[in-house]
């Protein structure tokens, strides 16, 4: 039996976590509710001092902290931002993160940060472009690295590969892990008219180390991955489908818009934890 990416890197399932968001800075470090780990957006901590740093330190004393970036620009045409990567490496070391992650996308053009997760064309050329950049990041940060399957609302021109094949080629050739965002799979499946379960089956699931769950917003012509609502029943069902194939993996409840009370987000994490426990007991 082939070892999974997690096994090869000694990564254990971490349980259910939530994101450290500004509205939780006071309350989260003091919560007495069950919580297994905390995810941070590193850009909020790389160059901002004061309250974010104090909150991060308080969280890192209690839980594993996983940096999940939005600004690495792993697929972009510009050279990797050396200052960013150096700061990221320092942050990953400071919180002693077992791994870190970002998105398979681009976010910078001509030196301008677009501050969005922009889809790449699903092409061999893009694979060839991204793979050495992933390897460079892993070498410079020195910890296991995961790439997330992003949501996308339009297929970019010139695509030649199915989306799942594109993901597979990148993570296998770069030898990184996969952060499987189940809500993104669901949103993409609906927006582009494919079967979400068949898509999951086509992924290199042995590389999944972490899962994201989130809510989305339905508009007449498109579903947007807003992270602004509870996880819907269909996504919970798809999550269960994934867990049955991967076994327990660290699972995050993402909530970034219309953020409710901490208690409400922790309630969602409890649901994920129960699902993880059920799968682990099998």
């Amino acid at each position, binding site marked *: 039996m082939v070892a999974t990416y997690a096994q090869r890197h000694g990564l254990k399932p971490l349980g259910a976590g939530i994101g450290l968001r500004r509205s939780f800075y006071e309350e989260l470090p003091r919560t007495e509710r069950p919580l297994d780990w905390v995810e941070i957006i590193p850009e909020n901590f790389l160059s*901002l001092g*004061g309250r974010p740093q104090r909150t991060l330190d308080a969280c890192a004393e209690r839980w594993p902290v996983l940096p999940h970036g939005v600004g690495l620009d792993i697929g972009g*045409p510009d050279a990797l931002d050396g200052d960013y990567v150096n700061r990221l490496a320092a942050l990953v070391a400071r919180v002693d993160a077992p791994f870190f992650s970002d998105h398979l996308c681009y976010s910078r053009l001509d030196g*301008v940060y677009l*501050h969005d997760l922009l889809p790449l064309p699903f*092409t061999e050329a893009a694979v060839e472009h991204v793979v050495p950049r992933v390897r460079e990041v892993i070498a410079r940060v020195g910890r296991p690295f995961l790439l997330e399957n992003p949501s996308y609302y*339009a297929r970019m021109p010139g695509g030649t590969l199915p989306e799942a094949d594109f993901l597979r080629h990148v993570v296998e050739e770069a030898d990184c892990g996969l952060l499987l965002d189940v809500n993104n799979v669901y949103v993409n499946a609906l*927006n582009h008219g494919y079967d979400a379960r068949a898509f999951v089956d086509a992924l290199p699931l042995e590389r999944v180390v972490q899962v994201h769950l989130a809510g989305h917003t339905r508009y007449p012509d*498109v579903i947007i991955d807003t992270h602004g609502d509870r996880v819907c029943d269909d996504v919970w069902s798809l999550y269960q489908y994934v867990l049955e194939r991967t076994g327990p993996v660290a699972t995050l409840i993402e909530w970034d818009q219309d953020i409710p009370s901490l208690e409400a987000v922790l309630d969602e994490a409890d649901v994920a934890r129960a699902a993880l426990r059920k799968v682990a007991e099998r």
Partner: protein
Amino acid sequence: MKPGLKHFFDSMGAYFARPGAQSLDALYSEHPGWDAPRGRVSVYGDFVRGHVRGVLEKIFPLVRKVVGAEAWDALVEGYTLTRPARHHELNHLAEGFPAFVADAAPSRGLAAFVPALARFEWTDFAVFASEAPPERVERLTANPTLAVLEHPYRLCAYVRAQGALPEPEAGEELALLWRHPEHLVTYYVEATPPALLVLKMAVEGLAVADVAAATGMPEAELRGAVERFTRDGLVLAPGGSGD
């Protein structure tokens, strides 16, 4: 990078430089046969523009209120076209906005105090987010996050009123802004002689007794000022703020 991928990025870069119907037409003309719905592609243009607006509206609420909706939209539009996001941290894109406002103010007929207000609001944020680490100090020390602004308006009182005043009073002001070491929020005051004296003591390492002798101030009064400004975090003392 393969030429086809470079062409893709070049075409997207042209679109994001000025997202709109015309640049979307140009983008599609670069990729004949691309059948993605146009509304789906323009979502990304809207997102990218929206990030700039969102940050500006978060950091400059008073400028926005003062100039009114139409002038604000024009400022945001003009600033967005300068492609200000050159840093990986989103809020940094607002750093150049006060200078942009200062350049634009005369031609757009903005009130004369608006550029100073924009500078004040940016400084408020920059102090709040300063990377200056919290310090354990051996002796009285000026707060490392301290910023000093000089302008011909009473902006401290105006900002404290949160837009309730029609405009700031005229008058030279030296404003001190710093992050409180415990509460981690920005404090700001108009510099007063006691505040400047305590800062001078901190910067030059002057003892209370020596300053009292030199200025003729009662020592107890001077110690009281040091304690007050230490509690407020303007200066840091070895014993902390005493909160």
